[in-house]
């Protein structure tokens, strides 16, 4: 379970200061599928980045599975991220000069999975997403829809309980978007907790709950 209380994030520059999250409080239960919606600049991606521990926050409490994240050092937060959180990004964020196999292998390398097991797991997960024939290709040699499936395969392979998706359908056409959201729903039904940022109401409909964020504050839950 994720519980955040009064989370605040301030971006500071030389001549400006901008509060992106203003004392946001939110609870996400285990196995829940939550969509975060809001206009551009509302703070939804910032919220997701803070929950995903890939961005720091300036105040408030963050508790993940009974661990007080806000009290952890950066190093411990990184370890927690490695053990608990996987990401899917709008632009897929695959490493261009690496084959798809190497891209999917990354989380397993980080977790010191043995070579044979890595191979087995990669073949299992890619078979599930119908991309096992593409493994020797590079990201720029496949379509956007295929790239996003690779990104999801990479997120799933580490078997982390939380999947954070930032506009996962943002770079896809409508057909690929629907396929992807159905895939995410299926993953959620298998027990993963999903927090997804989107601006597309059709996509958000697949979530168990929609959180609307406006000007860095949670506006409503539906």
């Amino acid at each position, binding site marked *: 379970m994720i519980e955040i209380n009064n989370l605040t994030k301030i971006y500071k520059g030389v001549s400006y200061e901008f509060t992106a999250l203003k004392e946001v409080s939110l609870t996400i239960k285990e196995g829940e599928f939550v969509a975060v919606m809001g206009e551009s600049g509302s703070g939804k991606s910032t919220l997701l*980045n803070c929950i*995903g521990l*890939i*961005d*720091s926050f300036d105040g408030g409490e963050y508790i993940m599975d009974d661990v007080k994240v806000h009290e952890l050092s*950066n*190093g411990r937060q*990184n*370890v927690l*991220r*490695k053990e608990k959180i*996987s*990401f899917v*990004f709008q632009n897929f*964020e*695959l*490493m261009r*000069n*690496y084959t798809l196999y*190497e891209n999917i292998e*990354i*989380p397993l*390398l*980080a*977790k*010191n999975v043995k070579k044979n097991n890595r191979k087995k797991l990669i073949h299992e997960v890619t078979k599930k997403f119908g991309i096992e024939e593409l493994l020797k290709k590079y990201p720029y040699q496949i379509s956007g829809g295929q790239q996003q499936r690779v990104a999801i395969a*990479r997120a799933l392979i*580490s078997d982390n309980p939380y999947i954070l998706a930032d506009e996962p359908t943002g770079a896809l056409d409508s057909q690929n978007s629907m396929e992807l959201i159905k895939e995410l729903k299926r993953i959620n039904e298998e027990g993963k907790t999903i927090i997804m940022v989107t601006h597309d109401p059709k996509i958000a409909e697949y979530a168990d709950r929609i959180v609307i964020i406006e000007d860095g504050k949670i506006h409503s839950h539906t």
Partner: protein
Amino acid sequence: MKFKNCLSFSISHLHNKRKLFFVNSLIMVVSIIMVFRVFFIYIACNFEIIQAHDFFGSARNHLYKLESIFLVWDFGYSEDYHDCIMELREKYDIVLYNNTNIYPLGDFKQDIIDYTRLNSEDDIARQSNGFPQMLFADSKLLEVIGVKDKNGNIIKLGMQDNKSEVAVGSFYEELMPIGTVFSDRFTKKEYIVSYILADNQEWMYGTVYNSGVLKSMDEWIIALPDMSKFEDGFVSYMNDVYLIADKNEVDYIKADIEKIADKYGVFLLLESFDEYEKSYKDLHHDMYYFSNVLMILLCISAMIAVITISLVSWLKDYHDIGVLCTNGFLDTDFFKIILTENFIKLIFPGTISFAILWVGDIGRGLPVKLFHFTFFIVILLFLICTVIVSCIIYHEFKRNNPVNLIKGER
């Protein structure tokens, strides 16, 4: 993350950036060779001093070099130096290191110093690890050096019943007891064992200032050369005669030595290592200045080139580092990967430049020890550079959030 995985990832990373890797390697090879060359000039200028530092360590603070025109004995040479040194030995603590050979002047029948084949050669070879090491040394030199037998007496080799006396190392004590007679298989010259050497005595190969190495004499046989074969005379000399003294007493000892030397009509000078270094450096002042300036300039240029190319190759990877962060790579993993990769970037060109320099320089007769020493220093410098670059890169990545890294923002 295990080292094996770091290595695997680093190799894959380098493979994916192979063009940059080859450029990097090329620059490294050129830089290493350049820095090696200039270091070599510098080290060659300082080699004698480095050797002395290496040989004596901190003991050199109490050692004073006894300089003379030459501490030389040659055929028919005056014994003044010999007597002078012997008197000094009585009074002061003198340490002598010496060359192994006597050097013939003019025409010389090579078989005198050539390997002596003994009738008992097979027996000796069977029991020892090979053939015995024969040392032909001047009797006066042996006396001055003070090579001792088992009873602690200084050996004095001569002739006994037309047989040439030899001293054998303790290894041969049972095989060749005192009184054993043997002869050279070809010249038929006869030898008699007169002394068994005391254990653990050492003899210097080379000189302190030129790759000197001390060797145990336990398996040696010492004999006198046949002087009649030296048709034009010979020289045998000692480069390294040292006096152990306390700093406070040096002025007094210097004056005393001068007095003793005057008595024998010889020239002797006591010099500390600092004085020796100073006079050595004064003598090579221009070369020093040139080599220092060149070394500093070239080192700085090479380091800047290496650091820049390494930084550029990593900083191009902001996005990829961000992706790795979001997929479970930790700070420590990055440091290991950066370090491993930078080491590979050093080892590969390091090996190539070693091969190039080895073929080029050793082929031209460069001393191997000096070559290794210089190369070691150069690689050490690049190694330090590699660690510094790795720390800079690590710090640069560490101070950024993964989200900024993915976006390529700093």
